[in-house]
Structure formats: structure tokens, C-alpha cells
């Protein structure tokens, strides 16, 4: 019932004792690892390169503005930060949460630098895909999405200030139910062909590129909403389906696996999740064992070796 950790103190790196200052001229530039940057460090000392994200020009040199890895594509240099908020691109699939309802649009939290916007004109309205927007819709926006609702959407465009505009105009997008959400650093989500993953254990996972992951009960292909009867009842409903105990436990396992991946900064994809799940089942661990550090470490170690 009560478990205590074995760590007895702060996990401190070894204190560094600085011997002092001996009045010699010290050089500002430290040795840099190939490819690793830190803010303020020089990357290149020539202007022949084009400068992308994460860099800025300083006289004759190009310097990094974030800690991360150097990326070069022909003449374009950029730095990809190793830790950062989500930086959206058009076409990205994101999982987001409604935070505010405004006239004719919703403000949505998508783990970005600003809240994203979901316009009323960018959602499917009940009664058929081609239905025109009525005035009454504007007054009843909460019947579609209200504060707190989770949805899956795609980045459609950007506003002038960089805020994203989302849309849910595909049948696969819309309100989420039958599961729970996990947050991970966005950089761990690899860009895949499809972010709707059906795992072998009978659980669906939506890997939002913004780091929000939705783990839910599997929905069979043929049960997904068809073109003709766009049923508002089911699409905007808040009611969960019946979910049996096995599926619930599978959802818990997958959630815990994702948390472990995030903890050890291990990139996440459906292949990885399937492998991890199989490993857990093979080793016959209980649901809550995954919360132990040792088991987590063992899992990551097993994953790394299988990859090689």
C-alpha cells in the first residue's frame, strides 16, 4: 500500500570544485561536440550558409540559439532543439483540448507556444458533411465542443502571429472518448505515415505530433462513421462505449509504457509500443509494476538491444 523509494538524497551530479582564477586569459569558446550546440556558441564562421531555425547571424559567424543538434541540408543550417514546445507544421496531426469558446471559434491548447484556433467553419456539422452553417450553430457551439473536450485535428494554416488554425473536416477527426491521455515531449513523436495506430493488444493509440497521446479502446474499421449518416449523436457525444476489463487493463499498460518511454527519452512509434507490450506480457508483470524504476530501466534496456 505504501512504497518508498530507495534514493536517500538529492540526485546531484558530483559537485565541481572550481580551483579558482589564475589570471590567465581564458578563451570563451569551449570544446564543442560535433553536432551538439548550446545557445551562444558559434556553429560556423562563414556567411555562405543560409540560416534556419535555431540560429542567428553575428557578424561573420553563425551562432546557435538553442541547445540541440545541428542539421544541415545543402546550404541550409539549422539547429533542432533537444527540448522544446511543439513547433507546428501544416498537415500535422494533433490531439488538442478546448480551453475557451469564442464567437464562431474555439481556442484550443495543443502544447504550442500559443493556443491554437479551431474555426466553426472548420468542423463537420451534424446532418451531413455538406450542410451549411446556420446562425443557430453559432449560438450552440457548446453542443459541439465545450471547454475541456479533447479532439484530434489537423493543422490547416497559420495566422500572422504564428498561431495554428486546426480543422476536423475528416471523418477520422473529431471528439475523443473511450480512453485516457498521456503527455510526452513532442520531439519523441516521430513523424509517421499514419498517426492512428492499432496495437496488437487491442488498443488504439493516436500519436499527436504535439506530444499529446490518446490511448483508447479499439474501434474496428467497419464501425467507423460512414459518409452518409454523419450522426451528430455519435460524433459529438460525450458518452463512452462499454469497455471490458481486459481492454481497460491493456490501456493502463500502454499508458504506463508510454510514460516510461518519455522518462528515458525514447522515441515513440507503434512498432515500439507493440514490442514493449510483448515484452511486458512475456515477463508477466503486473499493471502497477511498471511504475517501478527498475522495471522501467529493464524495459528500455530490452528495447535498445532488440533494435540493434
Amino acid at each position: 500500500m505504501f512504497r518508498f523509494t530507495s534514493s536517500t538524497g538529492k540526485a546531484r551530479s558530483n559537485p565541481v570544485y572550481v580551483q579558482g582564477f589564475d589570471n590567465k586569459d581564458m578563451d570563451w569558446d569551449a570544446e564543442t561536440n560535433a553536432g551538439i550546440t548550446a545557445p551562444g556558441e558559434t556553429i560556423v564562421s562563414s556567411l555562405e550558409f543560409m540560416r534556419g531555425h535555431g540560429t542567428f547571424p553575428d557578424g561573420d559567424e553563425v551562432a546557435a540559439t538553442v541547445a540541440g543538434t545541428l542539421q544541415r541540408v545543402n546550404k541550409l543550417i539549422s539547429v533542432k532543439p533537444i527540448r522544446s514546445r511543439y513547433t507546428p507544421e501544416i498537415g500535422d496531426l494533433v490531439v488538442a483540448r478546448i480551453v475557451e469558446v469564442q464567437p464562431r471559434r474555439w481556442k484550443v491548447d495543443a502544447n504550442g507556444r500559443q493556443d491554437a484556433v479551431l474555426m466553426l467553419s472548420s468542423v463537420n456539422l451534424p446532418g451531413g458533411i455538406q450542410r451549411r452553417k446556420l446562425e443557430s450553430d453559432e449560438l450552440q457551439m457548446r453542443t459541439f465542443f465545450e471547454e475541456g473536450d479533447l479532439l484530434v485535428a489537423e493543422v490547416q494554416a497559420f495566422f500572422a502571429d504564428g498561431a495554428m488554425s486546426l480543422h476536423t473536416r475528416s471523418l477520422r477527426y473529431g471528439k475523443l472518448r473511450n480512453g485516457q491521455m498521456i503527455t510526452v515531449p513532442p520531439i519523441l513523436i516521430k513523424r509517421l505515415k499514419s498517426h492512428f495506430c492499432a496495437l496488437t493488444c487491442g488498443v488504439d493509440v493516436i500519436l499527436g505530433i504535439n506530444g499529446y497521446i490518446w490511448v483508447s479502446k479499439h474501434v474496428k474499421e467497419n464501425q467507423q462513421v460512414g459518409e452518409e449518416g454523419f450522426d451528430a449523436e455519435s460524433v459529438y457525444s460525450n458518452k463512452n462505449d462499454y469497455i471490458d476489463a481486459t481492454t481497460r487493463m491493456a490501456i493502463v499498460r500502454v499508458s504506463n509504457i508510454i510514460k516510461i518511454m518519455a522518462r528515458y527519452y525514447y522515441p515513440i512509434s507503434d512498432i515500439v509500443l507493440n514490442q514493449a507490450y510483448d515484452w511486458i506480457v512475456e515477463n508477466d508483470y503486473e499493471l502497477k509494476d511498471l511504475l517501478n524504476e527498475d522495471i522501467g530501466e529493464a524495459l528500455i534496456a530490452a528495447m535498445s538491444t532488440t533494435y540493434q
Partner: protein
Amino acid sequence: MGSRVEILNPGGYRSDGRKQYELRSMDITLGSTSSSSSTVVHDLQNAMAHPHPTAPDGRAHIAHGLTEATAQVFGPREAQMRRDAIHDRANINVQVVMLPFSGGASSRRRGRGDKRLLELAAAIKSTFEPVIQTGLYPRSQIDIIVEIHQQDGGVLQAAINAATLALVDAGVALYDQVVAVSAGLHSTAVLLDLTHYEENDCPHLTVGVMPRSGKVTLLNMESRLHVSRFEHVFSVACEAAKIIKGEMGNTIGQRTESLVSAMAQGEPTYGRTAAADDMMDEI
């Protein structure tokens, strides 16, 4: 005054055994610290893994001797008060709290509106405003929250250094890092990285330097110092900042390296492209 400890004794040693130009031992931690395992790089378990505005984007802890400060960065994120949102850049918001048992001059509790804390926050904000690339984050807000866990002199120094590290950890774009150090004068001897006891006795200043350009972005002095002495103290402080920069740079580099290798476990080519390696040879 037999019971008074000398600031600098004839042998050149200070009250804590350091020499004149010696800095106190530094201990830097980037990111969360709650796990003892060295392979855990991002402690999501203890920061909740559900939609939570309460997990910081960046976090760092620094100790200079007995002075300890933790900085946490939230953002860039949507400005919480619409009136705070600036249309073309980010709004920087700094708060400083001192834990009640942090020691220091008095044991009194400093509330939210305490003048000293507001001064510190204002100094930190003005230090970082030109350093953060705020133009990249219009209408956003970046919150820097500094907690002083223990005080033994050099509080502003620790706060600035912790804030720099936390901003780097959060991935906020910076033109450069800011490294701060305190320096003081005892008769004609310049002392670096003063303890509380030394600060009470000697005129001292805190300087914040941007390593790349050598430019100064913070200069804070609350005591009286003779004009002719100032330049010497100031230049020694700037030199000392390089040493602190070295330590901070090492920690940042190590952490970035460990995160990159962690990611490479699952994606062997991550971070290491042939193109990047070629380019490093060209330079």
C-alpha cells in the same frame, strides 16, 4: 574584537578557507532531480503525465557553496491575461520566492509583495529581456520562477545562473547565455563569489555577462565603492564569469549529449547525419 573572523587573513585565506580569487564549489543540475538513476533524463513520472499546466518546460538547480537556487521556466505559452499579450513579442514574467528557512539576514517570511524580492525579479527580467529572442514568440508569455532554497551571499548571482540554465533547458531561443558572478573589495584586495558574511563587510557588485560578445547585461551594486577601484573589481569579475560559463557549458553539453544518445537508442541516426559530420570538418 577577538571573536570577529577576518575577511582576509595575512596568509591570503578568507573566512571559509578560500583564497582571494577562488570561487565556491558549484553544483548544477538540469531538468528534474528526483530520480537517483543516471539514465533517467526526463522525469515525467514525477511530473504528471496528464494535461498539466503544472509541469515546467525547463528547470535547473544551482548551488554556489551554500547558496542554492532553483529556476523553473513555463513557456512560451499562451498569455494568461489578454492585456499582457504583446502583439509582436513575448511577455517575460519573473517571480522570485525565498523559502522561509533559507537563512539569510533575517528569519522573517517574505511575502509576495516584498520589496527585496520584487527588486530581484526586476533585475532578472531586465537582464533577460534583451537576451531572449522574444520576437519569435508573439503574444506568448514566458514565466521564470526562481526559488531561493538557501542563502549565503550571491543570491542574485545564483538566481541569474539558474534562470539561464532553466531557459536553455526549456528550449527558449537565446542570443546568448548570461553568466553572473559577484565580486567585492576588502581594502585593496578583490574577492570573488562572496558569502553573506563577506557581503556585510565589503562593498560588492554583481555582474552578468554574455560570454559570446563579452557584453554586460547586468550590473548591480548596492554598496559604496570608490571610483578608482571600480574598474579593477569589475574586470576581475568579468574574467571570473568565464570560469562559471565553463561549468555551465559542460553541464548543458552533457545533458544535451545524454538526451541525444537516449533518442538515438530508438532511432540510431538521430542527431548524427553524415552531412553534419562533413560540415564540422569543413569549418
